[in-house]
């Protein structure tokens, strides 16, 4: 039997967390500033319009989406960059050499990415509090979707990091997969505003459910029933964790 190493996993979690906190300007402050800029721009561009079909003020609608988008992107960035930096600099061997099981490593990496996502979310909300009134309809929906979303993206980040061989590979996935999917998932608009074809396409975008459910937790309305899609979201997160665990155990692309 393999012996458990909870203290080792805890240390890895702390290492990962301290790593992003050491460069907090880039990992926490910058995303908050970006979100703030979006809000300022849309405030002047859109005025005080309401979102058709939902009857919610546009900025109130926009902010939870921006927060979730930042959470998703930061969770992905945290795990993927940690692994690819390790591989490129050849320091990933220390992780492979440590007496940690694949499960312990995945848990620690994901936990740290989730913490980063929530810190970024808190930073954005704190920055916007002064400008906009932000309602909170259901804290448990917010937490549940926030948690599932950041876990899912942390897992995808791990898979991307394992697969990638250089920084470019990660940039490729970030810019051509993650960015479009998050931008086109109803952060800036309600899906009801789209032509029927694109509405249908959006049904297959996992980020759509994440962002809609998360927003529902704030504004109390949305395009989907967040309680119905939680199974889907939790299932996808679970599958992604399972894939990470299997890939790490196999040593795919990590151990020659």
């Amino acid at each position, binding site marked *: 039997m*393999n012996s458990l190493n909870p203290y080792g996993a805890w*240390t890895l979690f702390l*290492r990962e967390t301290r790593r992003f906190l050491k460069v907090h300007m880039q990992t926490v402050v910058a995303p908050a500033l970006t979100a703030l800029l979006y809000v300022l721009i849309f405030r002047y561009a859109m005025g005080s319009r309401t979102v058709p079909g939902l009857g919610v003020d546009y900025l109130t609608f926009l902010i939870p989406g921006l927060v979730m988008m930042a959470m998703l992107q930061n969770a992905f960035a945290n795990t993927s960059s940690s692994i690819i930096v390790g591989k490129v*600099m050849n*320091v990933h061997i220390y992780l*492979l050499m440590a*007496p940690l099981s694949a499960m312990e490593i995945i848990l620690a990496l994901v936990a740290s990415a989730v913490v980063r996502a929530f810190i970024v979310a808190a930073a954005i909300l704190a920055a916007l509090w002064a400008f906009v009134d932000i309602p909170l309809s259901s804290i448990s929906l917010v937490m549940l979707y926030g948690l599932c979303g950041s876990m899912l993206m942390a897992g995808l980040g791990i898979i991307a990091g394992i697969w990638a061989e250089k920084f470019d590979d990660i940039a490729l996935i970030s810019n051509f997969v993650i960015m479009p999917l998050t931008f086109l998932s109803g952060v800036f608009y309600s899906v009801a505003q789209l032509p029927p074809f694109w509405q249908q396409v959006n049904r297959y975008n996992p980020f759509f459910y994440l962002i809609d459910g998360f927003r529902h937790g704030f504004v109390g309305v949305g395009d989907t029933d967040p309680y119905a899609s939680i199974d889907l979201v939790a299932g996808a997160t679970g599958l992604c964790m399972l894939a990470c665990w299997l890939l790490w155990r196999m040593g795919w692309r990590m151990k020659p």
Partner: protein
Amino acid sequence: MNEAALQVLGLRKVYANGKTALAGVDLQVAQGAFHALLGPNGAGKSTLINILADTVRPTSGLAKMLGRDVFRERSWCKRHLGVVPQEVAFDPFFSPVEILRITSGLFGCRPDESWIRELLERLGLAEHAYKNTRQLSGGMRRRLLVAQALVHRPALVVLDEPTAGVDVELRRSLWSFMRELNRSGTTILLTTHYLEEAEQLCDHVTIIDGGQVVADRSMRELMEVVAGRYLFLGYGDAFELSEADARALSAFRPRVMSGGVCLHLGGQGGEDLGFHRVYEAAVSRLGIPRKVEIRQEDLEDVFIRLTGHARKEKSTS
């Protein structure tokens, strides 16, 4: 009988590109040994070490540490193993002290600050403890790697070329530290290019070449049985060995060298011929020499003879 600290059986590694790095290696490292693993570049030493460290997957074979299956009980074995990898690399976010604390934690031990301080001092890193690792010189980084491998007090320490790029003085202090650890019970497996160091430090030698073991003996045995011993007799520059003399002395494999003749005394797996027998036979044919020397192959000579490494290098250059 005591369990071996490390036992490797029929270990094979074929990389994805089809290159065979290990072609069935057997290796046994006794508990408390200071064991040298030698071989020319590309012999498979690092592959063997990396498989033990779990950074390379084995193709087939068995490995046991202190009686436990390395591939089945990874976590247990890793906790008792400290590996100094050949390539030097550090997380640029942390200082030496932080790196040692983190490594200790990853191995499941709460950082032992007095041990960390001792390691830094013994390895000459105390004044650099809080610097960024990027500010450290190559030799310092390599010593930090050693500290990192020792921070969880492993029972078996594997050093892959720990002294490459480390200057003479620090090398000496590193070795005295390793000796001390070894005396207090730590088993050490070492690969190095400095063969005279291996000869002084190690009590057992395994030489591998082309992914296979070509010699595996205690250092004493290797130097007594495998290393050749020769008698050199000097007769001046004009010396020539006549055909009749050569035939008469053929049992001693005479070789003419500058100003004299070299005769085989023993070693290289053959029986010991004895100084007197060889000397008297030579004197009766060639007369009293002006100069008498006994020459002994050192580990480097044996290494070159067994692996044919120096010759190979010459023929390719």
